[in-house]
């Protein structure tokens, strides 16, 4: 297939370390002794728990109800008994707690009644709703609720839908194996997305170090009878970043301030497509995911793992070497050491890497920046990391913003190449969280100021109104009779067609019947407009909601309470 590919600047080629975990097919991880299922597993609102201690649950039963449009439901990963709904440490660098449903499995793994449906019989709204109810979120690491990305923009036509099978991070192979073993379901899932968004083209990008996956996907596309294009992209980290992959496949560059839909592109991960297919046509909510278990272990492998499985139990399956001293969740470029070994596998967990000093030697001491510029040459967003570093260090955060710190996707390319071994990304995270914290403080202060001023204003106004009332009382009394007569005449011909007219704001006594009639007509017109376009904010402004939710998510990330913001950017 001849296709013009584009390049993004920078990027690095770390050793891929993928073959270790590719030797064996996907295995089913056994049901663990206990499942700890966090309620907040996606960007957006935290689902409300709908079970309590002592409840019996079935596999796939709803345990957390989506809170708002940008939020996704959470389900029991297997059948058993709810032991508690309580705070537990999260798989997040902050080590903070969050509300979790703890389930003791009964070992039967008994499903709720699943209703397979033909999604073509559903309206787009119904499909989106089902995806939300099934807890389908971006599995590339961003965990953005998928249904929130599936409303076609009214203004910008959808040109390309980019499907991310690049999997550029070293060590991780779960998408690779998914495409090799379950390509058809992935392709069918992509079909659902395609039907909802109606893009002109569907481009499936796969790094060229995965020829088997690409071949499997191509075969599946043909078998299903689709016209999706499977495109090998050069292996170059971070080619699997959503923005980089969009650039490579379409030539479009999505700036930090915009979303890809503004440019007529939307991007989904292959695993997301797979779960969407299972959710819609098999009625199976997302209760498990593929996880690569690798690193300092005897038998690296990919497992299908129940959400909520304690990571140390999962790691045991691969028999870690005795010198293992930590678990990295995610890849070695953007992942993090989990705060304690028994934190649960969540929807964002694509890979566990057993950490040891042998595998990842301790970093050499940090030296001063020699301005060699290697970081700038490696940065896929064409930033000047050493300048941002300099100003982050000096806590001159305004300057870091001038150097576009919020365009940084924290891919780690700069840290990777820095000869001075400066942990640049850490400095950028620090700067970003400081900026967010300050903004919050400022907002809080502004609000307090506003509240205070408003209170003063209200008191003054109330005083004035009181005086006015007294003075006007007499005059109003006199005017009232005349006004009533006029209004009655006007309402006579409007009330019948427009009930709102009756609710029209009280008419000032001085205003004449003519004005009342105009007002009523305007109300009527407005009512008609509203009738023509049902006041469904869910459908009207998903983009705005998504924007708001993402901003909120970033702020939350600053508080280190949900998966970090950079994950947003990575392979949604």
């Amino acid at each position, binding site marked *: 297939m001849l296709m*013009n*590919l*584009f*390049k*993004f*600047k920078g990027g*690095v080629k*770390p*050793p891929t370390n993928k073959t270790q975990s590719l030797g064996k097919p996907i295995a089913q991880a056994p049901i663990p002794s206990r499942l700890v299922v966090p309620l907040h597993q996606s960007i957006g609102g935290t689902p409300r728990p709908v079970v309590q201690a002592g409840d019996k649950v079935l596999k796939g039963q709803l345990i957390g109800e989506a809170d708002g449009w940008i939020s996704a439901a959470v389900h029991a990963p297997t059948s058993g008994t709810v032991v508690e709904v309580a705070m537990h440490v999260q798989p997040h*660098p902050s080590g903070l707690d969050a509300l979790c449903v703890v389930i003791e499995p009964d070992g039967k793994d008994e499903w709720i009644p699943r209703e397979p449906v033909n999604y073509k019989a559903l309206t787009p709204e119904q499909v989106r709703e089902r995806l939300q109810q099934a807890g389908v979120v971006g599995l590339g690491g961003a965990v953005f609720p998928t249904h929130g990305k599936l409303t076609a923009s009214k203004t910008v036509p959808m040109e390309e839908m980019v499907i991310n099978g690049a999997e550029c991070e*070293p060590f991780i192979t779960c998408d690779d194996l998914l495409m090799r073993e379950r390509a058809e379901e992935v392709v069918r899932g992509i079909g659902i997305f395609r039907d909802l968004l109606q893009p002109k083209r569907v481009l499936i990008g796969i790094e060229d170090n995965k020829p088997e996956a690409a071949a499997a996907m191509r075969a599946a596309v043909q078998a299903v009878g689709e016209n999706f294009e499977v495109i090998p992209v*050069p292996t170059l980290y971070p080619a699997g970043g959503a*923005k980089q992959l969009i*650039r490579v496949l379409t*030539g*479009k*560059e*999505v*700036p930090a301030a*915009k979303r890809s839909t503004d440019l007529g592109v939307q991007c989904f991960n292959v695993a997301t497509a797979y779960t969407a297919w299972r959710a819609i046509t098999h009625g199976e909510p997302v209760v498990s995911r593929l996880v690569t278990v690798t690193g300092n272990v005897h038998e690296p492998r990919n497992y299908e793992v129940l959400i909520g499985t304690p990571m140390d139990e999962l790691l045991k399956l691969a028999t870690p070497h005795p010198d293992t001293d930590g678990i990295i969740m995610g890849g*070695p*470029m*953007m*992942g993090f*050491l989990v*705060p304690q070994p028994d934190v649960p596998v969540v929807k964002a967990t694509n890979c566990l890497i057993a*950490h040891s000093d042998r595998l*990842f030697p301790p*970093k*050499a*001491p940090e*030296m*001063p*920046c*020699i*301005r*060699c*510029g*290697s970081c*700038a*040459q490696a940065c*896929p*967003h*064409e930033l*000047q990391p*050493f300048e941002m570093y300099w100003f982050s260090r000096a806590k001159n955060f305004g300057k870091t913003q001038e*150097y*576009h710190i919020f*365009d940084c996707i924290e891919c*780690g390319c700069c*840290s*990777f*190449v*820095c*000869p*001075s*071994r400066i*942990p640049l*990304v*850490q400095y950028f995270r620090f700067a970003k969280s400081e900026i967010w914290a300050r903004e919050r403080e400022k907002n809080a202060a502004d609000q307090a100021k506003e509240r205070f001023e408003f209170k003063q204003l209200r008191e003054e106004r109330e005083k004035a109104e009181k005086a006015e009332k007294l003075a006007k009382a007499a005059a109003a009394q006199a005017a009232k009779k005349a006004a009533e007569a006029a209004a009655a005449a006007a309402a006579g011909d409007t009330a019948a067609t427009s009930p709102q007219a009756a609710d029209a704001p009280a008419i000032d006594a001085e205003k004449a019947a003519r004005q009342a009639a105009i007002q009523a007509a305007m109300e009527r017109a407005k009512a008609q407009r509203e009738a023509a376009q049902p006041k469904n904010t869910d459908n009207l402004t998903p983009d705005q909601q998504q924007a708001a939710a993402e901003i909120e998510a970033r702020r939350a990330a600053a508080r280190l309470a949900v998966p970090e913001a950079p994950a947003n950017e990575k392979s949604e």
Partner: protein
Amino acid sequence: MFAPAPFLLKDTSVSQVMTQVCIALVPGIAAYAWLVGPAILVQLVIASLAALLAEAAMLRLRKKPLALFLSDGSAIVTAWLIALTFPPLAPWWLVATGTIFAIIVAKHLYGGLGQNPFNPAMVAFGVCIVSFPALMSQWPSVGLQLPLVDQVNVILGLAPRIDALSSATPLDALKTALKLDEGAFDVTHLLANQDIYGNFAGRGWEWVAVGYLLGGLWMWQRKLITWHVPVAFTGALVAVSGALWLYNPAHFASPLFHLLSGGAMLGAFFIATDPVSGCTTPRGKLIFGAGAGLLAYIIRVFGGYPDGVAFAVLLMNLCAPVIDLLTQPRIFGMKDAGKGGKA
């Protein structure tokens, strides 16, 4: 434990970078030792020792980890550049003083590694040529007939600095002629009549310059430097010397002569490319390189010093921060996206 991603790091370090710079200097040094005089090797040792001593003393004073910073190799690079830019038979104390001044004042007083606004080696050169103009202008005649022992004796001050040791460089000869403006002098003729003149430029020196060129290309291939500064530097030098040469070939030497004379090649690949004191943005590097090349030409042809590279680089060092500020590159997603970059 706070997440220190990325866990994978490229196998690189400051000392690796500096070592590679030193390796890149080897072809030039070899040509120097072979064709001009092995005394340069002695000077390299003297400068290195002085640099390490000064570095160690300053690290002590500043309470920095001694082993870590001493082994970073940056002092050695500075020392070698000083040795290579000073006259090969300069007295040992001159080389040592220059080096110590570079390390203590130009480097550590400004904050040490990575903080110096001026290239330390060029500061040393500038200070010494202003303070000891005579000694800094004694360039030995080619091939230096003295055996190594005698050369070392001269350097160590054990033998008298006889006048015969030094002579004018081709650059000097040209400048003197131009200054006197003897009416009808002819560059080609003038140079051909000097036994210090080789095929393209100073005899022997031209091959040293070629050695630097090779080392520089190797650094570029290893991505230690980008093409911007060397191309802009040599480009500007060729442009201005070429223009004047075309205008009056009798008065002005050819671009090739200028490229292979004095510190042009060393400057283009090893000095103007110093990232700490130079520019870092691509366009900034172009401006920096072109400015340095242009100034080097003006100073070496019309100025009062034997060569212009040192002062040209120092002047551009002054401008570097402003140039960087004004040449910030576009970032991913900015307006003129899509132009170029097609694979």
